[in-house]
């Protein structure tokens, strides 16, 4: 196995205390980030594709909806919920919060739980 193909190749451990990184991300989900936040995002985005949250483009440049890569090729790929995003930054923040909860097991404080 090589680094590009290994789902476990990222070593970074997310510290649930680092709300400063959460704040930095929320401020600009698609912007230029600090080295520490880049490392955390690289870890969050790495891993086996199956089960990964993705944005299906409903209308190019206008509307997106969350789906998830299925376990097997050929399986159906339904949307995960009813929400339609009209901002990529809002979608990015939404996925970030889901992954934070899943990867740290810690719920974000109320002030970070809302939409962008």
């Amino acid at each position: 196995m090589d680094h590009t193909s290994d789902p476990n190749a990222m070593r970074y451990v997310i510290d649930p205390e680092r709300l400063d990184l959460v704040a930095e991300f929320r401020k600009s989900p698609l912007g230029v980030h600090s080295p520490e936040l880049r490392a955390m995002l690289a870890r969050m985005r790495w891993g086996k594709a199956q089960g990964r949250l993705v944005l299906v483009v409903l209308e190019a440049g206008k509307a997106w909806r969350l789906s998830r890569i299925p376990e097997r090729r050929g399986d159906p790929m339904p949307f995960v919920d009813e929400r339609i995003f009209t901002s990529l930054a809002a979608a990015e923040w939404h996925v970030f919060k889901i992954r934070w909860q899943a990867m740290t097991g810690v719920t974000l404080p109320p002030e970070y739980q809302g939409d962008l």
Partner: protein
Amino acid sequence: MIYRTNEYLGYPDRISVPAGETVKFQLSSKRDKVNVEVLRLRCGDVDAAGPGFKYEVMESGVDGVHACLDQEIRPGSCAVIEHGGALVPSGAAWSFGAYVWPTLIADNAKAIMGNWCAATERGYALEIDAEGYPVLVLGAARFALKVKVAARVWSFVSATLDPVRKTATLSLIVPADSTVPTMAHAETFALSGDPALDSGLDFLIAAQHLDEAARYTAHFDGKIEAPRVFSRALDAEMLRVFDWQPRTGATTAGLVAFWDFSDGITGLSVKDISPNCLNGRLHQLPRRGVTGFFWSGAVHDFRLAPKEYAAIHFHSDDIYDCQWQTTLMLDVPDGWRTGVYSLRLTPVGDTPEPDCESYVTFFVTPGKKTKRADLVVVLSVATYLAYANSALRLYQVHFETLMEHVLWLPMDDVFMQEHPEIGQSTYDCHVDGSGRCYSSWLRPVLSTRPRGYWFNLINDTHILDWLEEKGIAYDVITDVELDREGSRALKPYRAMMTPTHPEYYSFNMMNGIMEYQNAGGRHISMGGNGFYWRCGFHPAAPEALEVRRGMAGTRTWESAPGEVHLAGTGEPGSLWRHSGFAPQKLVGAGFSAMINDTCGYYLRQPDSEDPRAAFIFEGTGRREKFGDFGFRYNGAVGSEIDRLDYELGTPRHALLLATSEGLGAGALPTPEEFRTMVDGLDGTQNALVRADMVFFETPNGGAVFASGSITFGMSLGYNNYDNNISAITLNVVKRFLDPEPFAMPALA
């Protein structure tokens, strides 16, 4: 509106058609009728933030309603041998077997060899079942060994039928490998009744018959080597090691067939070297030129030691030609302009369905009666094929980290996940994990359609849109013509333009452009990461591109050891840089880095003030930022970028006009740009992570301009086409179309 883009699927028989000639379209749908229009695309990009989806509806002989069949795609490769009954067991005994190197043991049985048919349960076969146990199938009866084969380990699986004693013996020999000594297992089974061993059908290697309609199933994933059949009883080890090499004046008693896959590796026939000449053909383009049981590693080129490459790697998801029935034939009028064309396919019915439209893209090239323009745009079909139906966004571990955002999947990606039978790109892997070497246009290609993924062709139409806007006459040809005709395809033109990302280039394409440039032709290289992979169209399957990934380069898989040479042409795959013809030698700049975060812009360099290049920057300022804007990427320096390098072949007299600024930590070098990992490789520190804009003259009055960036073309239309990228490109185009020869400076 959310579009349904896959109600109709289709493909052309030829990807480019000269005006005045005919192209056949094969369409499929669950709906029994289709409404057809032909569009000439000016800009195929439907993005709300782009130049706009612009096209002309062409009046054609295929306009209107056509009947449409629901046509199946059956992927999976195998060898097919017509035998006229010669491979039906007869006589006192029957022995058969082959070396196998399975790569995927899962889901369903995988056939090794035989004539067995699942629908009729007639015939005989060797197979590996879903758990890895070798199985002998005789009519409706199945006999399994209690020992499994291992994935990616060579084994010899064989059987002997003895109709006199009414027994069958199934054997597995696993020759010594690594720390494991040779192992042999065999079991003899008593036969009851008289199994029906004659299916009346062809003999197949790596598949079984699904039914009697030449539909195949149980496709083997992995390598098979040296299948053989005897009409007598042979001990398994004797069957494995018999003297199979033909000798003059000597025959081998009872030998019915021995398929030597080392014979004819560059073709699609399989040769039986027994006196019976039971030759066969390959179906759906499995991979040849792969290392076999006897590979020594002494050479890595199958042409030098074909006997060490006597295996074929079959895949259950190989797909070369869907073999659909033709739905309609378009006679392209002599007078049609060259360009990017698409069939627009919409439903027929009383209830309007404006959200439902599909496309099949093809290219119209100059015909015998076409009055040629002075400029030709050479579209990158090889690259479109290399990326055709790319599933990078679906299945790659690294891809979201690389893109630095949650992945955006067009609806076509959802379709590809749900319908993997259409086959993926040369960036993807087969179900067995091995990289895909082939991509053909004889199947639905979703990634070259409006409303689909935009990389490559749709991005390229931004350049065509700009040419139309500026009123510059141009023809379109594709690199397929360049591959087939070499420099003759370019000769009628004063200037050529390559678009955003001409990454995959064959030998004929590279040398064709070099010859054109050296004969006084002018080349405007608009893109980035061009002329990078050495690839080839398969001579025996000319609609398929073949790619082998070497041991360097930006790549999502890597060729197995010893498997870098193209099976079709024998030449080494991998990077042109590793064949001594780096892109710098052709256009002055070559791949340096990928930009995964924010794009950059250019700043002029001192060479831009050289009188030789003064025409390029007329009307612009010396200190301007060039291209700090653009559609989709927001900058003219982005996606993939190229740099000048004299050692790699940039002509010594080349001028460095401009170089990039503003690249950050997400700008990362391509692997062949460093030999040792050290800190400071990214764009914040690494001076080699940059885009260079280059100009140089060529012999006989020609010249080359290279932008050095994929996203350069997506800046042309910004601000209603009024911007400094548009301005310098127009300066280049005008001068390159001027017959006044360029003067090459005297070389020191």
